[in-house]
């Protein structure tokens, strides 16, 4: 009886649930955001910081503290948030599309594609900053395309083939990355290695703006395809029979996810496992409806990366860890767990 009552107005219930989930996650994100702004090499006072964050001038922060807050921490937190949104929603999109809970930008080689694109941009168009996200997007798209073509057997692309194809492309591109790295001078190699592991410290305001914009576009596009993904998640043929334009949805989601991964890698390198951890936890908590999963992954992903980056820059302060090291520390064991459970 209870189940029937619960399911009586599922349409509205789904909408209300999505709204509620987003409200709660937004609140968590805000708390994480403020907390991340407070801690660091120098601790900022809560009341004054909150006051300054709301745009007021006279809040009792010293000019040095204002500089720390607005010039150093805020851009970095915003970037971490944008990267979290990008990677988590891209992961959720790939997982639904490829019907594989293990699918993730890194596993599929898409991130490495974006990394090679970024490196090519750095080597050949070093001064033109916009070339990095553009080339990263192109690299991500190319890697996605190659992986998908490799995976396509006579019976279509099975999830297993796809993951294998991803491994092959990842390995291949890794050697490309090594090759480009060896052509660089010794001083740049260290910052590159850092960037490859995921590093949020070396960004600029224009890269930040591009990443935020890409995050917004990507999330909206994925969200608009969420209902179709709900059906494709249960089989492409079934989805086709039920009225989904499978080919169009597949291309749209691949392009949107490549855009998300490209923007994130161009601005902050390869932050691993976000696309695996976040959608998984979201699905575990709120169910598999992609309309909820994508919106919730965006918010939870932002909070997750901000949190991970806060840990990365405080845990051995004044030294910093690359944020990718922290996310991998959480993500890799979860991956093993998911693999064991399958």
């Amino acid at each position: 009886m209870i189940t029937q009552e619960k399911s009586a107005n599922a349409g509205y219930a789904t909408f209300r649930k999505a709204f509620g989930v987003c409200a709660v996650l937004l609140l968590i994100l805000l708390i994480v955001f403020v907390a991340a702004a407070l801690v660091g090499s120098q601790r900022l006072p809560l009341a004054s910081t909150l006051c300054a964050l709301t745009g007021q001038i006279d809040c009792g922060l010293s000019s040095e503290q204002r500089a720390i807050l607005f010039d150093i921490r805020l851009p970095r937190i915003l970037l971490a948030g944008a990267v979290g949104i990008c990677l988590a929603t891209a992961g959720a999109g790939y997982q639904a599309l490829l019907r594989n809970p293990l699918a993730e930008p890194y596993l599929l080689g898409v991130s490495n594609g974006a990394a090679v694109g970024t490196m090519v941009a750095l080597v050949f168009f070093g001064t033109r900053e916009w070339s990095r996200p553009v080339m990263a997007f192109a690299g991500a798209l190319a890697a996605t395309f190659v992986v998908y073509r490799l995976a396509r057997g006579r019976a279509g692309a099975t999830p297993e083939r796809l993951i294998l194809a991803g491994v092959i492309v990842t390995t291949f591109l890794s050697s490309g990355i090594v090759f480009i790295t060896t052509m660089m001078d010794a001083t740049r190699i260290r910052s590159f290695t850092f960037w490859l592991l995921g590093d949020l410290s070396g960004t600029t305001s224009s890269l930040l703006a591009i990443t935020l914009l890409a995050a917004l576009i990507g999330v909206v596009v994925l969200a608009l395809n969420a209902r179709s993904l709900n059906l494709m998640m249960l089989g492409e043929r079934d989805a086709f029979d039920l009225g989904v334009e499978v080919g169009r949805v597949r291309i749209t989601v691949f392009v949107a996810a490549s855009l998300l991964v490209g923007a994130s890698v161009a601005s902050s390198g390869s932050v691993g496992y976000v696309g695996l951890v976040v959608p998984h936890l979201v699905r575990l908590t709120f169910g598999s409806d992609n309309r909820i999963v994508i919106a919730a992954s965006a918010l939870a992903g932002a909070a997750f990366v901000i949190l991970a980056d806060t840990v990365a820059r405080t845990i051995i302060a004044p030294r910093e860890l690359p944020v990718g090291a922290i996310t991998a520390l959480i993500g890799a064991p979860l991956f093993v767990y998911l693999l064991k459970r399958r």
Partner: protein
Amino acid sequence: MLIARDITVNYGDRVAVSRVSLELEPHRITAIIGPNGAGKSTMLRTLNGGLKLTAGEISLDGQPLASFSRRAIAKRIAVVAQEADLRFPVTVFEFVLGGRYAWSAPGWGWETVRDVEATKEVLQETQLDTLSGRLMNELSGGERQRAVLARALVTNAAVLLLDEPTANLDLAHQATILALVRQRCDRRETSALVVTHDINLAAEFSDYVLLMKDGRGVAFGSPEEVLTPETLKEVFEVKVLVDAHPVSGAPRVTPVHELRR
């Protein structure tokens, strides 16, 4: 409704279906039977636009099938596959509600009260209402197949295409699925096309039988007309005995295996 005229489908160089014609009528169930590789499933997939025609034409409600959008076809033709592919946990209710996709607005497509009502009705029709909150992969094979059928029924499509819907089910569940299809065809302007390997089941529940071999339609007509020892011997290359079912009177086919004792 759905009419196929002289349709031919090629897979590369191989001809999978060759000049087959078929017309589906309201309230009628048509069964397609034939040996493996006869082109039965290809035929089924072609009829809802899933495979490209090499030659011939298919019309739906008097219009060429190709002129309909994907959603428009899904409102008129529903497909029941053998099994659902479940890698992510979904409840029975969510699963069946997915059948309303073609009726929802594009984009976010939040379900309307009507979608929910239709889903509830179909869950009752298929006796799944008490299981609506359960996860699909917690169900038994028979229950799961009923949910797959329910998802097709909730589309309110006038044409049901079923691809071996009872292949993995025991006797009782086979009967339940086919009784539900019969019931839908009796109550509404619906027609069903069922691909099956079970000749006796086809003889029991269908109004017409299309017998296929090597992509060609060998015979079409009522079960009594089509299921004769001669035709079946020709198609299946096995000697059969055909008599009348003692209860229903439908043709009953028994293979006569000439194995050495």
